[in-house]
C-alpha cells in the first residue's frame, strides 16, 4: 500500500510545529505553554512562601536580600489537543485524485506535525460509519511520535460514504472535546444544510479553527455540457440543467461567490480558511500555503 505521505515529506514536516495563538488548556502535560503554573524552565512569577510549599523552589537570593521567603513559580507546559474534522462523506470520493485522498493527506500531515510536537491528535471523521468504528476509535487521542505509523495506517483504512452532516458533526465534536485546542476542518463544505452553526460551535468552544475547503477540478471548471440531469451522490437529489460553454463563466462566478461567502464567514470568526482543489500539489499546500498562513511554522 502506498504510504499516505512520502518519507521525504515527513522529514520536512518534522521541522514544523503547530502554531497556536492561544495557551494550552489541556490538563495533560506537554510542550505547550499554558496559563497554569507548574514545572518547567520558564520562570513565571513569585509567590510568598506558605508552609507546605516545596523548598526546592525557594529563591534563596531574595531571602538573602530581603530576609523573606519567596517561592519561584514556573509555567506549566501542557499539550495542545489537535482535532481534525475529516469529511468522509460520499461527495468526497469524487475527483482525481479524490477529495477524500487529498483531505486524508492533509490530515496525516497535520497529525504528524502535531504528534512530533507531543500534541494529542484526534481525527473526527464524519459521518459515522459502523463498519469503521474500531478504526475511527483508534484515531482518537493519538499522542507521541511513535504512534505515527499506526495513526497513518488507521487513517488509510478510512473510506468515504454516507451523507455529510457538517453542522451536526462539528457541533458534536465541539461538545465532546474536554479541552479546546486546535481544530482543522477538512471538507468540501457542500452541505445543503450549511456549515455556519458547526463552525460557530467550534469557535464558541474556544477552538482555534482552520478550515480547508477541498473541491475537485470538475466542480470548479466543469467539462460536461449539454442537457444534463445531475444526480446528487449523497442524497440522490436530481437537478435538470442545460449547460453550455457560454454559461461556464456564470457557473464559475457562482462557485466563487460560494467560496467567498465561506471565506468571509471564516474571517469574521477568526478562522483560517483555505480553498483548494484536489489536484493541487500537496507539497505546495503543506510547505508553502499553510506555513504562510501560520498554521505551522
Amino acid at each position: 500500500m502506498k504510504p499516505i505521505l512520502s518519507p521525504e515529506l515527513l522529514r520536512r514536516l518534522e521541522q514544523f510545529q503547530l502554531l497556536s495563538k492561544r495557551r494550552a488548556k489541556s490538563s495533560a502535560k506537554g510542550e505547550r505553554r499554558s496559563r497554569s503554573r507548574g514545572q518547567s524552565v520558564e520562570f513565571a512569577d513569585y509567590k510568598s512562601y506558605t508552609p507546605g510549599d516545596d523548598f526546592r523552589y525557594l529563591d534563596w537570593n531574595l531571602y538573602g536580600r530581603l530576609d523573606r521567603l519567596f517561592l519561584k513559580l514556573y509555567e506549566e507546559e501542557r499539550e495542545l489537543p489537535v482535532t481534525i474534522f475529516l469529511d468522509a462523506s460520499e461527495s468526497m470520493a469524487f475527483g482525481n485524485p479524490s477529495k477524500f485522498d487529498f483531505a486524508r493527506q492533509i490530515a496525516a500531515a497535520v497529525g504528524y506535525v502535531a504528534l512530533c510536537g507531543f500534541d494529542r491528535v484526534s481525527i473526527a471523521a464524519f459521518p459515522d460509519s459502523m463498519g469503521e468504528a474500531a478504526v475511527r476509535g483508534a484515531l482518537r487521542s493519538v499522542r507521541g511520535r511513535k504512534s505515527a505509523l499506526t495513526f497513518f495506517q488507521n487513517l488509510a483504512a478510512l473510506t468515504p460514504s454516507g451523507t455529510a452532516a457538517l453542522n451536526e458533526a462539528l457541533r458534536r465534536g465541539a461538545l465532546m472535546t474536554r479541552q479546546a485546542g486546535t481544530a482543522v476542518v477538512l471538507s468540501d463544505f457542500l452541505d445543503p444544510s450549511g456549515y455556519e452553526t458547526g463552525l460557530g460551535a467550534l469557535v464558541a468552544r474556544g477552538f482555534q479553527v482552520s478550515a480547508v475547503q477541498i473541491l475537485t477540478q470538475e466542480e470548479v471548471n466543469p467539462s460536461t455540457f449539454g442537457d444534463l440531469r445531475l444526480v446528487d451522490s449523497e442524497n440522490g437529489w436530481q437537478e435538470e440543467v442545460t449547460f453550455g460553454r457560454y454559461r461556464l463563466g456564470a457557473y464559475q462566478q457562482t462557485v466563487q461567490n460560494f467560496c467567498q461567502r465561506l471565506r468571509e464567514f471564516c474571517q469574521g470568526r477568526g478562522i483560517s480558511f483555505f480553498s483548494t482543489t484536489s489536484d493541487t500539489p500537496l507539497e505546495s499546500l503543506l510547505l508553502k500555503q499553510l506555513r504562510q498562513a501560520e498554521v505551522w511554522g
Partner: protein
Amino acid sequence: MNFLAPAAFWFAAVLPVVVLFYLLKRKRVVRLVPSTLLWQKFLAETQASAPFQRLRHNWLLLLQLLLLILAILALARPYLAHTSPGGQIYVVVLDASASMQSTDEAPSRFEKARAEALKLVDAMRADDQMVVLQAAAVTEVKQSPTSEKGALRRALQNCRVTDTPTRLTEALKLAETLIQNRSSAEIHLFSDGAAEDLSAFENSGLPVVYHQLGNRSENLGITALDVRPHPDDPSRRVIFATVSNFSTNTVTTQLELSFDTALLEVKSISVPARESAPLIFVATQERDGVFTIKLSATDDLAIDNTASFVSLLPQPVRVLMVSGGNRFLERALRAIPSVELSVAPALGATAPDFDLYVLDNVLPASWPEGSIIAFRSAHPDWFDGSVPLEAPAIVDWKGSHPLLRFVHFDNVQISESVGVKTPSWAVPLVESPQSPLMVAGELGRQRIVWIGFDPLQSTWPLRVSFPIFMANAVDWLNPSSISARQLTVPAGSPIRMALAGNVTQAQLRLPDGTQIEAEIDPVRGELLFGDTSKQGVYRLNTGTAEILFAVNLLNAAESDTTPRSELQFGRYARVEASTFRRASLEIWRWVAVLALAVLMFEWWYYHRRTA
C-alpha cells in the same frame, strides 16, 4: 376587417407546434455529481431553467407565438373596406373569342391573356379599382369595380374562352361608360385583334392599353358552308364550302365530308397563302341529318377546322294562286320544281291550308294565315292609305336581299302602281322616287311580300328576272325553308324557333353532352336559347321529335389569327400594342415566409448552442 387570403389561416396549425416544442421534454444525459448544491445556486442565480419551463412565465414563447400570429395575419392579407376616391380605375377587357384559342402562345392566347391580366391585378395599388369584362359575342361584366384582388382574381379565373366571334365595339363602349367621369382610368384590352371592323367605334381619346396576344398566323379555317338542293337533281345536295388560308405559306390538306357519322368523301385542297378556295361536294341525301366537313390540317386554331350543317329533305311547297288569270305568273310558279300549285279565282273561306298564297290583284274576304305574295292587293292593316301612281320609274332595288338575288330591274317599265309609305314591319326592296314598289317583311308570324303593281301592267314578266324572283320568293316564304335556315346558327347568336304542336317543355343537349331544360316561350310556343358559345350540334328533344341545330363559327375575321399590332378605331384613331408592362409582383408574402424561417432558425440555434 376582411381577408384577401383567408386560406393563410391554415398556417395557424403551426401554433400548437411551437407550444409542442416547449412541452417536449428534452432527452437529458444523467450524470452523478458530488453535490448538486453548487448547481442549485447556479440555477438560482442565472434563472435559467425552472421558470423558463413554465409556459405562463415564458416570454420567449409568448413572443414567438405573437410573431407567428402576426405573420399569419400578414399572410391572410387583412384589409379594411373603405372607399377611396383617389385611386385609378382599370377596365380589363379580356377577349374570349374563338381566335383566342390559338395555341401559338402556350398554352393558348386566352390563357396567356388571363395570366397577364392577373399580373395587372397583382400590380394594383390598394386604392385602385378594376373591372373585368369578358368580350365575346356578348360582353359580360365578370366583376364590377372593386379593389378586392381576391374577387378580381376569381373573376378572371371564371372567364371562359368561347367559340364565338368578338364584338369588341360593344365591349369598348361598355368600358367607355364605366370610366366616364373618372379622372384617372385605363382600359386594358387583352386581345389578338382578330375581330370585326372597329370602324363603328369612333373614339380617339379613349385611354386604351392594347395588350396584343399572338405571335404568328398559322391557321387554315372553314369560313363558309352552305348546303343546297342540286339544281338538276333535287334529291341530291350540293355542299359549298370555303376554306381560307391565313398563314403565309400555301397549305395543302384534305377536307372530309361526312353525313351524321358516316364519312362520305375526302377531297384534297391546296390553298395559297392569304387566300380562300371554294370547294363543292355533291352528295345524295335520303334522310334529314347533319353534314359535317372537317379539315385534316393541324394548325394553331382548331375550332374553325370543323363546320356542320343541318340539312332537311326538301318538302313540296303547296301554293295557292288566287288570280283572275295570269299566265306569266302561273308559268313562273309551275317552273319551280318543289311547288305544288293550285289555282283559284277567289279565296274561299273553307280553303285547305297552303304554305304560300299568291294573291294577284284580288281582295280576299278573309285573309289567310300563311305566307303571302300579294300583287296590288293589300290588307287594310298593312299600310296607312294608298295613292295611285302613274308610270313610276324604278330607281333602286336592294340586290343584297335574298328575294332579289340575281334579280335586276333594268329595262322594267311599269304603267301604273299603288303608292304607299313603307310600314314599320317591312323593308322596301324596289323603290320609285315617290313610293316603294315592293316591300317584304314579317308581320306577326306571317311573312309577306307585297308588290304594288300588276305584273301584266309592266314589262317585268318578259324579263328573265321575273321567274328568278318568283323562285326566290317561294324559297324565302316557304315555312319549311325558313325553319331549315334557322337550324344553322352563327356561334354566339341566339336560337329562336317556333315549335310545332303544343310543346311546353323540352330538353336541350349541348355539344359537350350536357343536358339542360330548354326555355320555351309558353305564349308563342317558341324556343329561345341564347348560350350558343360552343360550336357543334345542339339537340332539342321535345318528347315527340328531335330537332338539331348546328352552331358554327364560320367567321373569317376570327379565323384570321394574324397578330395585329395596331387596332384602328373608327376612321382616324388607332391604338398600338403595348409591350407587356413589367408588373410589380407582390413579394411581401415571401418576405413573411422568410421571417417565419428565420424564427424557426432562431429557435433551433438557441437550443443548439446550449449543447
